[in-house]
């Protein structure tokens, strides 16, 4: 459980994060979105206790990270933006060190290290010096490092950056498989990733929260969009008027190259009528598809509306 309340961080006059609040239960996977410099990393650093906020509180499993940092930090696994690696150590030595410093119990240590090596696909390189590994492997060592203390709160700052497409899929599956018993917060630039793994989305911009929604609700609103995109060979105002004449069409917005975005009245099915119209008038049908509101659009809308 992560409880963030009224978090504010100022660097001098610059406000990095302002009045951020959210609450996550066990099992939640939060996708933390926002443009570069929106305050994602700052927020994560505050939650992990790396830096104190100017105002506000963070509770990890009910423990205040600033009043009781040693206890709270034991329950956190954190992958920073740049994986914190000692390049002169081997993978196994490094994980052993992290397990020690995170105070993993001696009797659990060996099995935990074995587990994360296996989970992150590092068993084969465990005797290699980290400095000799490729970026993708280093990123995996970073993730392994975050998991070694079996944290109940997992915080990942852009976990799939620098990985190849196959590894990205593996890591996503890994995160999904880890989520059950834990609370996961992950920031990312890759929006489809959020749709795939997250159960909740928070979008921040210029330090302020612009959207907080559970993904179920979001996908619902994504699916329910009924706008259609029609592309025909013929163009011009006459086409627009003809489309408007179809029963149930409430709006037509012409786009480039014979595209029209058509909004039907609520609950009316217009596709059949529309196709008939196009064929009868010999407009030259090229494309007709439902216009899906992607997360990208929601993201853009959330951010730009805040900007205005």
């Amino acid at each position, binding site marked *: 459980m992560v409880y963030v309340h009224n978090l504010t961080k100022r660097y001098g006059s610059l406000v990095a994060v302002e009045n951020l609040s959210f609450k996550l239960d066990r099992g939640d996977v939060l996708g933390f979105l926002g443009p570069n410099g929106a305050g994602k990393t700052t927020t994560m650093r505050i939650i992990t206790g*790396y830096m104190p906020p100017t105002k506000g509180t963070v509770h990890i499993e009910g423990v205040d990270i600033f009043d009781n940092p040693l206890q709270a930090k034991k329950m956190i696994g954190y992958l920073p933006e740049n*994986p914190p690696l000692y390049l002169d150590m081997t993978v196994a030595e490094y994980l052993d060190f992290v397990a020690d410093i995170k105070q993993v119990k001696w009797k659990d240590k060996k099995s935990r290290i074995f587990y994360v090596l296996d989970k992150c696909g590092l068993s084969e390189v465990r005797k290699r010096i980290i400095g000799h590994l490729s970026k993708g492997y280093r990123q995996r060592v970073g993730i392994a*490092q975050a998991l070694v203390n079996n944290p109940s709160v997992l915080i990942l700052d852009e976990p799939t950056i620098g990985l190849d497409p196959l590894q990205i899929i593996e890591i996503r599956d890994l995160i999904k498989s880890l989520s059950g018993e834990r609370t996961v917060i992950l920031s990312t630039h890759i929006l489809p990733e959020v749709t795939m793994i997250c159960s909740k989305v928070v979008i921040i911009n210029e330090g302020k929260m612009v959207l907080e929604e559970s993904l179920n609700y979001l996908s619902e609103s994504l699916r329910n969009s009924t706008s259609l995109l029609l592309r025909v060979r013929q163009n011009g105002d006459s086409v627009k008027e003809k489309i408007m004449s179809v029963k149930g069409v409430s709006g037509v917005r012409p786009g480039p190259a014979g595209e029209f975005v058509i909004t039907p009245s609520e609950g009316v099915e217009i596709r059949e009528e529309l196709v008939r119209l196009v064929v009868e008038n010999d407009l030259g049908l090229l494309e007709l598809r439902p216009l899906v509101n992607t997360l990208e659009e929601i993201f853009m809308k959330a951010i730009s509306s805040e900007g205005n």
Partner: protein
Amino acid sequence: MKAFYTIVKRELRSYFASPLAYIILVVFQVISARFFFLYLQGFLQFQFDPSYQLQTGELNLNNLVVLPYFGTISIVLLLIVPLITMRLIADEKKNYTAELLFTSPVRIRTIVFGKFTASLILLILMLLLSSINIFVLMVHGNPDFGAVFSGYIGLFLLGASFLSIGIFASSLTENQLIAAVISFGVLLLLWLVGALSDAESSILGYISVINHYEDFSKGLIELKDVVYYVSLIFLGLFLTYTSLESERWR
């Protein structure tokens, strides 16, 4: 306690996994042994020089070999300690591992003290190596053991103060070279400040890091000197702690 041990272990591993520690130990030993040989040679020459026979009181192993030998060691320490401490914290910042340390359930003071202890172990190794020469001297001659002992206590305290200042310098930057230059500059200043005034009578004389060493080399362990060095060590470590702590708030 476990976290402290973990930090010390990692730092020592890091020293000895790279060539750094070996190079430092070899360079230190070669330079100090070379000077030891020079002083010994000088002593042997004086022994057969009739004009020095009159000053028999002055002519002993302690004054002609041990004392200058320890003096050389103290200068080599001044040059080498910045190289020992430069990476201790600067490197953590550069490799982003500071973020791992500071989000782990470990107190900052444990981290600082662990790193200091690891560098202290390297210092002790250096001093042990240098004592081989003294040991040879003990077997074949009879230097005053008390002066040798107090001299080593002095060297240890001097080196430890250098280390604590070096760690502080390392906490100020993420560039090892800059850390080394800062600590060398500060140490040299602390050393030379005594030369600007006459010995202990003035504040500058009291601040000078080497003035306090002189008593040790003469065989005196004086409380005021011990207090001076111990306070310097704690000042360095405290400043390191403060610099790390304040960085989080920025």
